[in-house]
C-alpha cells in the first residue's frame, strides 16, 4: 500500500543496471572460456597437427617441419599450448590461416558481413512472418485457416533447410528463372548504388527463405499458443471495455505481451541460425562464415575452423546479453536485480 511517491534519484536507478551488466558480462566471460576449452580439446583430438597437414600438400623436409612446429609452439606440452592459445585469443589473435595466407581474423572479418546479413534478415523475417501466422491462427482458432496454418507450420518444422533450399532453387531458379540461385552479387555486373542493393537483395531472397522456414514454424506455433493465452486475460477485456479499436486490442494490448516468450526464443535461436547458415551458404555459394567453416574442414585449416567457432560463440553470447537487456525494456515487471 505504501508505495507513496518517493522519487528515486537517477544514480540509484542506474546502479542496479550496472551491477546487472557486470554480472552478465562475467557470466559471458566464463561461458566464452568454456567454449575456448571445448574448442581446444577438439583440436587435440584431431589426428595430426596442422604442420603434418601442410606437409602433405607441399614438399617439406623433416627439419622444416620441426622448426615450423617450434615456431608455432606445437612442440610444447598441451597445457603450454592452451596457455599460448588463450594468450593470443585475449589479444583477439585467432592465429594464421595457411590456406588463405592471411590471419584468421582478417579472413573472418571479410566473410562475417554476409553471415550477419543472412542471420539478421532471417531473424527479422521469421519473427515477423511467424508472429503474423500465429496471430491470424489464434484469432480464428479452430477455423479452416487455423488448421491450414498449423499444417503448414508442421511441415515447415519437419523440413531441413537444405531441402527447402533445393526446392526453392528448383522452383524459382531453374524452372521459373525469377531469382538468382548462387552468390551474393551478380559477378562482373559492376553495379553501384540502388541497382547494387537490388541485386544483393535478389540474391538474398532464396537463402533467407531457406533459413527461415524452420523458425517461422517455431514462432508461428509459439505465437499462436501465446496469443490464445494472453487473449483470455483480463486486461484484454479491459481494453475492449474502454473502447480501444479492435486492431489495437489485438496488436498492441495482446500482442505486446504475447511477444515476450518469442523474444526469449529468438535469442536462443541465433546460435542455431548460425549453424544453419553453413548449409544455406554452401547450397547458395554465399561467401560467409558458414561456407568458410565448410571449406576449412576440407582444407584441414584448423585455425580458421576454430576461429569461426570462437567468433560464432562470441556472437551468440553477445546476442543473449542484448536479449536480456531488451527483455527488461519490454517487460517492466522484470527488474535488473
Amino acid at each position, binding site marked *: *500500500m505504501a508505495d507513496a511517491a518517493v522519487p528515486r534519484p537517477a544514480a540509484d536507478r542506474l546502479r542496479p543496471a550496472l551491477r546487472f551488466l557486470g554480472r552478465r558480462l562475467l557470466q559471458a566471460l566464463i561461458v566464452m572460456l568454456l567454449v575456448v576449452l571445448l574448442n581446444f580439446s577438439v583440436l587435440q583430438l584431431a589426428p595430426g597437427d596442422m604442420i603434418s597437414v601442410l606437409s602433405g600438400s607441399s614438399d617439406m623436409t623433416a627439419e622444416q617441419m620441426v622448426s615450423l612446429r617450434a615456431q608455432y609452439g606445437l612442440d610444447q606440452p598441451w597445457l603450454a599450448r592452451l596457455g599460448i592459445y588463450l594468450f593470443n585469443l585475449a589479444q583477439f589473435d585467432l592465429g594464421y590461416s595457411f590456406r588463405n595466407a592471411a590471419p584468421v581474423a582478417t579472413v573472418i572479418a571479410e566473410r562475417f558481413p554476409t553471415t550477419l546479413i543472412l542471420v539478421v534478415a532471417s531473424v527479422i523475417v521469421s519473427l515477423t512472418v511467424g508472429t503474423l501466422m500465429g496471430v491470424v491462427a489464434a484469432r480464428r482458432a479452430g477455423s479452416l485457416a487455423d488448421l491450414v496454418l498449423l499444417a503448414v507450420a508442421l511441415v515447415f518444422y519437419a523440413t531441413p533447410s537444405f531441402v527447402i533450399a533445393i526446392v526453392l532453387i528448383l522452383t524459382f531458379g531453374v524452372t521459373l528463372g525469377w531469382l538468382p540461385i548462387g552468390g551474393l552479387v551478380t559477378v562482373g555486373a559492376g553495379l553501384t548504388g540502388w541497382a547494387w542493393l537490388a541485386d544483393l537483395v535478389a540474391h538474398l531472397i532464396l537463402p533467407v527463405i531457406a533459413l527461415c522456414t524452420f523458425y517461422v514454424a517455431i514462432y508461428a506455433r509459439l505465437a499462436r499458443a501465446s496469443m490464445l493465452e494472453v487473449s483470455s486475460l*483480463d486486461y484484454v477485456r*479491459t481494453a475492449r471495455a*474502454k*473502447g*480501444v*479499436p*479492435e486492431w489495437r486490442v489485438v496488436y498492441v494490448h495482446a500482442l505486446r*505481451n504475447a511477444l515476450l516468450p518469442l523474444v526469449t526464443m529468438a535469442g536462443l535461436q541465433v546460435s542455431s541460425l548460425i549453424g544453419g547458415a553453413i548449409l544455406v551458404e554452401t547450397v547458395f555459394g554465399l561467401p560467409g562464415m558458414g561456407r568458410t567453416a565448410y571449406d576449412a574442414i576440407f582444407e584441414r585449416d584448423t585455425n580458421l575452423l576454430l576461429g569461426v567457432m570462437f567468433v560464432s560463440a562470441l556472437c551468440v553470447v553477445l546476442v543473449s546479453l542484448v536479449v536480456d537487456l531488451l527483455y527488461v525494456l519490454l517487460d517492466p*515487471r522484470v527488474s535488473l536485480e
Partner: protein
Amino acid sequence: MTSSTRASASAEALPAPLLAVTSLALDADPSSPLIEDLSFTLDRGETLAIVGESGCGKSLTSLAVMQLLPTNLARSARGKIRLDGEDLTRMKPRQLQRLRGDRMAMIFQEPLTALNPVMSVGAQIAEVLRDHRGLSRAVALSRAETLLGMVGIPDPGARLGDHPHQLSGGMRQRVTIAMAMACEPDLIIADEPTTALDVTVQAQILRLLADLQARSGMAMIMITHDLGVVRQVADRMVVMYAGTMVEEGRVADVLTRPHHPYTAGLIAARPSGAFKQDGRKLNDIPGMVPAPSARPAGCLFQPRCAQARPDCAAARPEVAEDAGGTAPRRWRCFHPLNRPEPGEES
C-alpha cells in the same frame, strides 16, 4: 466536472431511464440457460446494486450490458438492452466500440490483471482520451494526471510513468477508476470493485466511488455479493438468483422488509446481523445455487427454500409488482414475506 450539468439537464429533458434491460436471456447451449427473463432499469445519476451469490449471473449481466460477452454467449443473447433509448444489441461493433469507454465504462474486480502489465498507467488512461476525444498525447497525459489526482492518488505526476506492478492494490483500483471516469461516462459498471482489496482499502474505494458519482452525476451499477456495500452506496437493488431477478426495490425497503425468502436468507447470513440475533448462529442458506443445466422445475429457489409449499414446485412464479408510488417493488415468489397474505398480486 461539466457532465453533472449535462447529465441533469438531459435528465429533465428525457424522462426515459438511462438504461433499460428488457427480458434479457443468455445460454451456453439451449439446455443450460445462464440468464433467464431479466429486466431492470436505471435512471440517470442513480446507483443500482445487483446482488447475489457467485454463479447467479451478475457478472454476465454486466458483460451483456457492455456487449463484451464471449462470442458463443453473445450469439445466444435475446432481449433488449437500451442505453438512452438506443438498443445496444442491434449496434454494429464500430458503434459499440465508440460507446464503450466514452458513455459507458467498467471497473473490474481484480485491478492487477485488469491493467496491462507492460503499459504505464498514464498511457493506459491517456489511451481512452486519445481514442474518444482525439486528444494529443501530451494533452491526454496531463488530463490523466488530473484524473489520478481526482481519484486520490498522491503525487499523480510522478505516478504516470509507473507500471501496474509498482502500485498497491488500492492504488491500482484507483487507476482503473480513473480510466473508467476519463470520458465522464453516463453509466459506470463496477463489478465487485472491492472484493480483491484489503478491508481497510475497501471502504476508501467505496467512498471514492460514491463521491465521484455525486460530483459527476453518472449512473452506476454496482455488482456485489456484499449487502454492506449495497447499503453504503446503492439507491435501489436487484437480487439475482440462478440467472434471474428474484427481487427488486429501494435498498432501504428491501433490506428491512424483504419479500423473497432468498433475500431474507442473504440478510440473515450477514455476520453483523447474526450478532444482533442474541447469540444465534450465522444463518447460512442450505444447499447451493443449482448449475445452469440442473435448474429445478417450478421456482428456482424452491429446493433451498424454508418457506416452500407444494405449489412452488409446480410452476415458475412470474414477476409480481407493487407500483407503490415513489418506491415500486418487484419480486418473483408465490408466497412473499412481509406482505398481506394471500397474495392479491397477480
